[in-house]
């Protein structure tokens, strides 16, 4: 690619050290995470619960401090920004939360919630802020009279729309959407996904879209990153990943999707065992304890992420498992 990536994450690691009160081992939530997102692209991040998706999403916006690594955002390494610069930077990047109940303050009206960012950033006069908030409400297809109400008066789907509207009021370029529909009724999920897709296209947003639902990811994402136990297993353009998954873990994930095709159902491959603890990850390939193709060599060294085709990377030493 000729143009430099919009977001370039390099060797990101996050270890949660035990606090003074909770003694215990260091949790290695992320290890050696590197990926790029080009401007206007939607990159999906999939993995089981506890694989580190939220930790990546929050580190990328520096809502938690990474242990090491760089996060280059349009040319600036945001891990090196001072407090004041970081605050200015925050205007350009926003987060959409998984839980629409926890993410809205019960003590604020929707108007206060939507104008909070403008208020913090000192953008506009009061009337202008209101106008921007109402524009955002319209963009997420909520009635304008929501402005003076409290969050508890709205359903989960409506609250998630408010959460999306809040992320939009600062007119960001980049959004991290952390499982934005997984807490919602299935009947509403499609609406919210479509809304996000529309907004992303219309506003030209760049997005990191976190999900554990591969079907959703396939629909909305250009590229997909598969995460397991804090490490990247495979990266590929969405269509390619679904057509030609290379990594044993990706295959297992894909075969776990309920299918109507009886042939596909036949070679369904169920993962044995549980995901190991990130406090004590397996040596070598972190997936080896559950991998049906594991060899002696998988124990020794961490398999590097290497290209198998244009834009398709995998972290597995075996090429013979087509």
């Amino acid at each position, binding site marked *: 690619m000729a143009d430099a990536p919009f977001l370039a994450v390099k060797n990101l690691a996050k270890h949660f050290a035990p*606090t*003074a009160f909770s003694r215990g081992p260091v949790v290695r939530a992320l290890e050696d995470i590197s990926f790029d997102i080009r401007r206007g692209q939607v990159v999906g991040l999939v993995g089981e619960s506890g694989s580190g998706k939220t930790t990546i999403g*929050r580190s990328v*916006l520096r*809502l938690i401090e990474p242990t090491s690594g760089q996060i280059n955002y349009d040319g600036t390494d945001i891990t090196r920004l001072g*407090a004041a610069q*970081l*605050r*200015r930077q*925050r*205007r350009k*990047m*926003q*987060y959409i*939360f998984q*839980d629409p109940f*926890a*993410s*809205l*303050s*019960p*003590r*604020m*009206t929707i108007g206060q*919630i939507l104008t*909070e*960012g403008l208020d*913090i*950033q000192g953008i506009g006069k009061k009337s202008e802020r209101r106008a921007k908030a109402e524009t955002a409400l319209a963009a997420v*297809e*909520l*009635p304008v*009279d*929501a402005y*003076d*109400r*409290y969050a*508890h*008066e*709205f*359903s989960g*789907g*409506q609250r998630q*729309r408010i959460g999306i509207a*809040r992320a939009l009021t*600062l007119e960001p370029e980049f959004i991290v959407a952390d499982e934005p529909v997984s807490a919602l009724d*299935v009947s*509403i*999920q*499609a*609406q919210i*996904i*479509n*809304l996000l897709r*529309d907004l992303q296209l219309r506003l030209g947003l760049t997005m990191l879209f976190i999900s554990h*639902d591969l*079907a*959703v990811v396939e*629909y909305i994402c250009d590229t997909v990153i598969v995460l397991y136990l804090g490490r990247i297993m495979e990266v590929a353009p969405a269509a390619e990943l679904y057509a030609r998954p290379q990594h044993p873990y990706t295959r297992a994930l894909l075969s776990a999707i309920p299918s109507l095709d009886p042939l596909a159902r036949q070679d369904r491959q169920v993962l044995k065992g549980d995901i190991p603890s990130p406090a004590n990850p397996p040596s070598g390939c972190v997936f080896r304890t559950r991998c049906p193709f594991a060899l002696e060599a998988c124990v020794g060294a961490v398999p590097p992420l290497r290209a198998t085709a244009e834009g398709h990377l995998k972290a597995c030493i075996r090429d013979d498992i087509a």
Partner: protein
Amino acid sequence: MAITAPDPTVDPTAVPQTKGPLRRALDRFFENRAARAGLLIVIPILLAVSTYPLWWPFGPNTIDLRAMNKAPSAIHWLGSDGVGRDVMARLLQGGRISLLVAVSSVAISTVIGFLVGAVASFGGRLVDGTVMRLVDLAMTLPPVIFLLVLASIAGTGIAPTILVISLLSWPVLSRMVRARLLELRERDFVVAARGMGAGLPHLLFRHGLPNCIDILVVYATLQIANAILLEAGLSFLGLGIAPPEASWGNMLNLARSTVVLENYPWQWMFPGAALVLTVLAINFIGDGLRDAFDPRSDLN
């Protein structure tokens, strides 16, 4: 999951306009019978205490030489004391002082308690550790001894008494505030505010304070009752409000003399009763506020 035809219709907003959480808490408060009774006692006391010079003929230090140690009568409704001062006037003035001392010291200790708790919880691990060890230290000091030492350093009078009482009671509050804010800090809506660039003042005053309002109100109310008792105790021991200024505490001090205790009960019974009644009523109000703010009561 199948993503079918885009159907971005809004789920209908059928829920009617309702009140904010603070309004709902207040509604619950007014449904509480004991709390309403508390208000019915406290409000007239406040009114009487603040307006008495307008309607009561005697001042707290007016001396009526013809009435020394006189029992309640038509002129001196609550009797008079050993130097001929009107007990009713001293009771009302004493209420003024006692309530002034209590309210001011609680206001000060609430501000200190909130700020210390807030700084500890939002200031990072090192600040938190240091501040909370100091709070622990302040809490392990035996309160009675601490109070007496402080009082003997500060001296008597209104301002020193306010200082002494306010320095005694903030550590408990700062612990409660810290616990609440530590939990709040991890809530998504606070993370969202940080993600929009919020600094410490915004986080503390736009999120911290509104989400501690229940703790603060309940603490302040119950602490006012406590401070009235502390003032009375100090003044009773001669360490608080010194005569000739009146306070409920130093009026009770008279009862230390057996002559007064046995022969002139009106001189100590009325301030005693006023004290007990006020403290009780304020405690009713405080309990009512605590129940009204209980998060569980929002569920039903």
